[in-house]
């Protein structure tokens, strides 16, 4: 609707009408109306999305937000509903997952763009996309039925064999090997494709010019990557990081299956814990009244966290585009 060119004055359309001069966005065809209606419908759905949850959560937010944010311990069915363990669990698992995903993901992106021969690039990219397509419940299943036993039977005994194990690790291996650490690992695998997809995009659009210039000065391949590509793409890489972090915060069923579902702030990651999303998923089925409101309030908290991170990521990727436009 923004590109409108008036037809020449003496031309008549095959509908035998005098052509109109349409200007700007004030076109009056039914097509335009249909689009607007659909858009308003979507807007309504989005507002409803935020609004309904907020509405349901309101009583808890206004009266008990302090408890929700700071208290440890969730007493169904009447309260108090302390969300501290969920918040801490979400932050811990997401951050550890992020570290895993960024370290391996950055190496993967660099490999795909600069190291792998061109023929393999497509296969490699497809591989990473397939990783992204796997449903989260399948990751959770794999984590619970394969990784958890492995942790329980192999890793934890090994950790317990260390000198002073009791002092360092305490008593890991509860809940069949489910733990925040396991959840972090599974999450890391799940957000890896997100990070790789964006970082790949960001480092591959660094102009060829710069690559050739650096190599023409005698730089080695790694120097080219480290001194030219990465600094130029730095903002976009941060954008990829924030988006991957956002995704990690929102993961529900995979975490629910492997984190252990214990609503208590733990001393370290080898113990079972929970996250906001997985707690909502597990508790909602049996919840009534006030507890529903409390869970909805947790939902609002999750929404704020996730949306905030998403928006920061968007802003960063937008800034990155501007950097490259100047080059």
């Amino acid at each position, binding site marked *: 609707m*923004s590109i*409108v060119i008036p037809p020449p004055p003496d031309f008549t359309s095959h509908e035998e009408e005098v052509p109109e001069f349409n200007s700007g966005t004030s076109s009056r065809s039914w097509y335009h109306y249909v689009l607007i209606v*659909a858009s308003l419908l979507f807007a309504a759905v989005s507002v409803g999305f935020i609004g309904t949850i907020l509405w349901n959560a309101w009583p808890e937010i206004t009266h008990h937000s302090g408890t929700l944010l700071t208290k440890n311990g969730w007493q169904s069915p009447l309260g108090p509903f302390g969300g501290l363990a969920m918040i801490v669990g979400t932050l811990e698992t997401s951050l550890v997952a992020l570290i895993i995903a960024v*370290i391996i993901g950055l190496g993967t992106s660099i490999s795909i763009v600069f190291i792998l021969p061109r023929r393999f690039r497509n296969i490699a990219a497809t591989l990473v996309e397939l990783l992204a397509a796997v449903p*989260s419940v399948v990751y959770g299943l794999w984590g619970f039925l394969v990784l958890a036993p492995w942790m329980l039977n192999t890793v934890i005994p090994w950790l317990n064999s260390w000198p002073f194990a009791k002092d360092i690790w305490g008593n890991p291996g509860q809940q069949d090997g489910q733990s925040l650490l396991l959840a972090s690992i599974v999450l890391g695998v799940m957000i890896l494709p997100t990070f790789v997809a964006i970082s790949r995009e960001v480092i591959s659009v660094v102009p060829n010019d710069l690559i050739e210039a650096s190599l023409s000065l005698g730089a080695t391949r790694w120097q080219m990557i480290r001194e030219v590509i990465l600094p130029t793409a730095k903002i976009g890489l941060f954008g990829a990081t924030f988006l991957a972090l956002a995704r990690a915060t929102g993961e529900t069923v995979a975490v629910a299956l492997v984190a252990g579902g214990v609503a208590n702030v733990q001393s370290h990651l080898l113990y079972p814990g929970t996250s906001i999303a997985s707690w909502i998923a597990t508790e909602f089925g049996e919840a009534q009244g006030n507890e529903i409101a409390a869970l909805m309030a947790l939902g609002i908290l999750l929404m704020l966290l996730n949306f905030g991170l998403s928006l920061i990521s968007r802003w960063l990727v937008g800034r990155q585009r501007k950097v490259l436009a100047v080059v």
Partner: protein
Amino acid sequence: MSEIIELQEPVETGHQMRDEIRQISDRVRARRQIRSRIMVVLCGTAFLISAVPLVLLLFQLFDRGLPVVLHTSFYTQLPSTPTLISPNATGGVSNAIIGTLVLTLYASIMAIPVGVLVGVYLAESDSKLAASLRVISQTMAGAPSILMGLFAFSFVVRDLGIGFSALAGSFALAVLMLPVIIISSEIAVRGVPHTLREAGLALGAKPHKVSMKIVLPAAVTGIVTGIILAMSRAIGETAPVLLVIGGGYINSWKPLDPVAALPLSIYENAKSEWPSLRTEVWGIALVLVVFVFVLSLSARMWASRKQQAR
């Protein structure tokens, strides 16, 4: 006549630093090359590491799930609960298969028309509404899927009084699919060369006819790809439907009935005490993964083939 070229006496200036520079750089060169090789190998290793989970997962899926999916009863029977007498009587997952199909169908009906239209609007309009909707849809695309379940619970199950039903689940999935379809439709329409639109307008056609008859058909590939990917995502999601579909144990197509879903069956039975059920979920997971892979890969292949045909 051949000339004898006069030699221009070269006036060489400013090379005092050359020797020093070359000396240092020669000394360091080998070390730099080694470091570059090491880092390259490390990056390649990272790539291999990222492939490991997928390989391991696929192996487990086929190893544990293949025996399960090779029985027709898996697809045709309703689930049953194992007992001490018959610990392997898990039945099948026909209700979940039907349920997933039902949910995806209804969700698509709700999400595709609206999603495509909004995507087209975003591509063609500069208004503030369009700009805000773009931000909203991108943010919603990354939103935690459990929130869609909460939304569907409040709105469909409670406020509309419909209760736990396929409709509620479809609604949640539709909200999930909408942003994906919007974003990919916008990209598809924007990807149509604007010369095409201008040519149509220059021939005197009205703008909306140009959009409908020239631009949209050209964008169909991208739009369909987006729809397929959205559907593929909806099929695999557990959290949106977890809270609202009610876990029906019969095969039903009615929107108001409770219904089952494949990912939900996995979630519910993963921690079952019965080994037979725990094995069965691998079969369900295998079916789910194969289906989702086929959808993703065909969407990708179709999109690239159409790209080449251009």
